[in-house]
């Protein structure tokens, strides 16, 4: 109790400081906008080197805003500079202490975002189910009105996924808790699930909430929450993994019942009017040779914890799968929440990574397996590598990874502390790390909207732009998630799409983005070409444009247009070219 009291006392001044800080900076930014813009790039750049850090003070500001945030909004640079890089980083590591007033009203604009899987399934049944229901009503035939209604329903159903994807983009744009959003993106990708696998999409609102709850918390808790999430149970098939026939189960089904079971289930399904699709599944489940499905067990070790070279064997995969038999969904292939079914849990003894697990254990056995995996040194190494790759560079320095892995182990998988170890390190602020990462499509779009101060788009269109650029959210089919390596995102088609994205932004073709709303627009609009280019280079490219780039942006404008039109159009064109430029593809 006294402890809590102290904590609250020390917390209050921090919050106060933040509020004051933001207020002060906003005024400062407004005043500074017109004065600052147009200043030649290098002029504002301070060359002093901060302690052991190789990056200049200005570079550090840009760096944290591109790595612990989705790129700077115009006022952010001043905010961080004023707070100090370290204080800003420390604040981002405590998202619960950062006021985030714009997110709640934003989320309220989505109709289905707060829905659970059960609500979604009820309101928007899968098209197959709805189709069969309609066909039964019509005695096997569909009226034109039926089919119109079905199409409408399917469209509405698809909206739910669109709303979730839209909210992911919008939150990344407007949230003040930027590092938290970065880590949400990281973990949703680390624990990748694919919306297109049958009914997985219905579980994704819940999945997003699960990831958010633990994104900066305790890794073991996160791992357990994901293991029991309907999205993961469904996507990687663990819901249908049962003890192999011949294996003892924890709670045997009486033989008479077992023999009649298939027919009973089928009859029950027919009576409650199951669709052909459901009947197919019932048939499949009741006729199929019961047995293990290793899918989740394998990815749990290969992708979620130990990593592919984590030292486990195929036998370990089988044993982990056995330990997780009975971890399933209340309504099986139709959804429902997590349940443990002792009737299908393999009750035999197991040995996993050399650790014996005695016979006759139940759900706690799976929990113990997760304990074992989460605390394994290979997991510390693997998670540290992936975090450092995301936050520092495609090939993070081994010494940094080793330190981060030690922090992970020492703190029993405290994600916040592991991230802190990485983002306060000299390696993080090294010259090599500066602008070393290629933006993913998600990062490209979000950083553009932030740079231009676009309001959050609550329609699905911006998320669709992210899809078209090659990164549909919840749209990566394989369990490994999207790559976090620059070369995976760079090819001819990708560059073309990114250039066209920049041009569409500049011509106000992106939903919600109007250059005229950009706070710098008015002050830049009337300046000469060179000053415009320098302003754009400073605000969009973080002063990192090469001299060639500057020259190319400066030359060329339509000499036939009237001077003021030319200047305004010219500014839009400079913005478009800058977003399509190589420099903007990096962070």
């Amino acid at each position, binding site marked *: 109790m006294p402890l809590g009291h102290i904590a609250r006392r020390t917390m209050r001044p921090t919050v106060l400081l933040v509020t004051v800080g933001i207020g002060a900076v906003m005024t400062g930014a407004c005043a500074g906008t017109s004065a600052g813009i147009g200043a030649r790039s290098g002029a504002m750049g301070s060359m002093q080197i901060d302690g052991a850090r190789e990056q200049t003070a200005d570079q550090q500001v840009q760096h944290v805003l591109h790595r612990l945030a989705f790129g700077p909004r115009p006022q952010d640079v001043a905010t961080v500079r004023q707070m100090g890089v370290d204080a800003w980083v420390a604040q981002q590591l405590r998202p619960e202490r950062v006021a985030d007033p714009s997110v709640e009203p934003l989320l309220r604009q989505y109709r289905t975002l707060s829905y659970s899987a059960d609500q979604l399934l009820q309101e928007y049944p899968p098209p197959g189910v709805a189709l069969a229901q309609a066909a039964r009503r019509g005695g096997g035939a569909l009226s034109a009105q039926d089919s119109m209604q079905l199409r409408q329903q399917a469209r509405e159903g698809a909206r739910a996924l669109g709303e979730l994807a839209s909210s992911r983009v919008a939150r990344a744009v407007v949230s003040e808790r930027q590092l938290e959003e970065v880590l949400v993106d990281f973990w949703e990708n680390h624990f990748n699930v694919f919306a297109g696998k049958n009914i997985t999409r219905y579980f994704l609102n819940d999945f997003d909430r699960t990831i958010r709850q633990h994104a900066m918390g305790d890794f073991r808790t996160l791992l357990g929450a994901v293991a029991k999430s309907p999205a993961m149970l469904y996507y990687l098939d663990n819901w249908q993994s049962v003890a192999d026939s011949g294996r003892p189960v924890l709670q045997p089904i009486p033989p008479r019942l077992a023999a009649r079971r298939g027919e009973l289930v089928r009859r029950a399904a027919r009576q409650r009017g199951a669709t052909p699709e459901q009947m197919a599944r019932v048939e499949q489940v009741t006729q199929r040779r019961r047995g293990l499905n290793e899918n989740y067990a394998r990815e749990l070790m290969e992708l979620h914890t130990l990593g592919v070279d984590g030292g486990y064997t195929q036998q370990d995969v089988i044993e982990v799968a056995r330990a997780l038999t009975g971890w399933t969904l209340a309504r099986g292939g139709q959804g429902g929440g997590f349940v443990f079914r002792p009737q299908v849990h393999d009750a035999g003894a197991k040995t996993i990574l050399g650790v014996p697990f005695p016979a006759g254990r139940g759900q706690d056995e799976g929990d113990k397996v997760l304990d074992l995996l989460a605390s394994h040194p290979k997991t510390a190494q693997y998670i540290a590598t992936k975090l450092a790759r995301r936050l520092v560079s495609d090939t993070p320095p081994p010494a940094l990874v080793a330190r981060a892995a030690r922090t992970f182990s020492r703190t029993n998988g405290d994600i916040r502390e592991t991230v802190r170890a990485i983002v306060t390190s000299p390696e993080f602020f090294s010259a090599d790390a500066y602008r070393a990462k290629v933006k993913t499509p998600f990062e490209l779009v979000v950083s553009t909207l932030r740079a231009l101060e676009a309001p959050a788009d609550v329609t699905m269109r911006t998320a669709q732009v992210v899809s078209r650029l090659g990164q549909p959210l919840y749209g990566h089919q394989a369990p490994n998630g999207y790559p976090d390596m620059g070369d995976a995102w760079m090819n001819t088609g990708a560059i073309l799409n990114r250039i066209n994205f920049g041009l569409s932004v500049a011509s106000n073709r992106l939903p919600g983005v109007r250059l005229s709303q950009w706070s710098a627009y008015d002050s830049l609009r009337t300046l000469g070409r060179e000053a415009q280019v320098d302003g754009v280079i400073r605000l969009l490219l973080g002063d990192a444009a090469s001299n060639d780039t500057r020259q190319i942006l400066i030359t060329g404008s339509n000499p036939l247009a009237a001077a003021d039109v030319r200047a305004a159009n010219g500014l839009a*064109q400079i913005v478009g070219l800058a977003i399509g430029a190589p420099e903007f593809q990096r962070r």
Partner: protein
Amino acid sequence: MGEGMHRRVFLKGGALSLLTLGLSPSFLRRTALAAELPRVARGKTLIVLFQRGAADALNVLVPFGDRDYYAARPQLAIGSPARTNGASGAIDLDGFFGLHPAMTGFKALWDRGLLAPIQAVGSPSATRSHFDAQDYMETGTPDRKGTTDGWLNRYLAVKGTCESCTPSSSAFRAVAMAAQTPRILEGPAAVVAMNSIDEFSIRTNAGDAQQRLEALYRTGRSDVVHGSGRDMFEALKVLRAANPQQYRPAAAAQYPRSPFGQRLLQIAQLIKAGVGLEVAFADVGGWDTHVNQGGAQGQLANRLRDFSDSVHALVTDLGDRMDDVVILTCSEFGRTVRQNGTGGTDHGHAGAMFVIGGSVRSGMVHGRWPGLAREQLYDGRDLALTTDFRAVFAEVTARHLGLTDIDAVFPGYRGGIGGSDRWLGVMG
């Protein structure tokens, strides 16, 4: 020269970094090998067409000679050619199998000796999930979910790029006529995914924006971002020189106005434009006919007419070029032998494929027919499998495109006809 260097360095760097990412050693071996392997024979093209949703093979390639077929499908069966006059019966191929009556386009290809149908072919996996089955067919690794790349991309990676080709022409080496790169083409080799050729252009009407963008990528450091940009601007020039906007199909080929027909038209454009197209992919949905599937007329008939007419137009349009082109059609699985209670069919097992081209062995229906009597069915309900889909994919890739390292593209495949001296024989 500089760009060639860049590409090779990029490839090597990619392989090394994949190692740290923790991908399998075999993947690494394949990627590393890619730089050294013999180069692609010029001018051969493989077009893969995927019917998503599980096409009802028994009503596509109709076993009218099998009495059990009619017993299982009292309303849905397609009549035998002998008993039905004209349009409503199957189109006879060999006295036992016939084509669905809507597939007159395929019949024309059969008559010209260009069509090789395969019956009872598919995935050995027992799954009846669309998702899993498509995944397996596209990765080429049935029952292995962890595979990260598609088999067509592994083929591209194993073969490496054509040595004499410039980076620009290899930009269109692999094209998916789709909004996103499909699973079958995912992987380390570069792939262009586009809904239409028009999309592969810089959308600006602002004077010199394109030239200045190009200049932005031609100057500056030599990294993966700049390198990809330079390749892209080269590719744009190649495409512009080929002038696909002015395209007129040859031989009065009539492509359906459907999205699928238009995608095939654009594949023909790319082939004729000589942009170096080696692998093309398109897919078409609407095959998941649980309800009101129809017989000689109806839902499935309409899908098949579009499918067959589109492919027929493509073949007609390509003319003599079909000597160097093979079209391969597939679908994730077949459907139940029995019709269900809602005038449709449910998820089954084995299906049908077609291999089309000047070099195929036509005049016969390939694959062993397992029969439709109850004891001959898979799980007592589905057409049994007698040919692994990898047997067909491997034979086409080896004999048409010159793939030698089958194991690199279909790892672990040891099918009954896996050895190169024991092909199914669809490629003559």
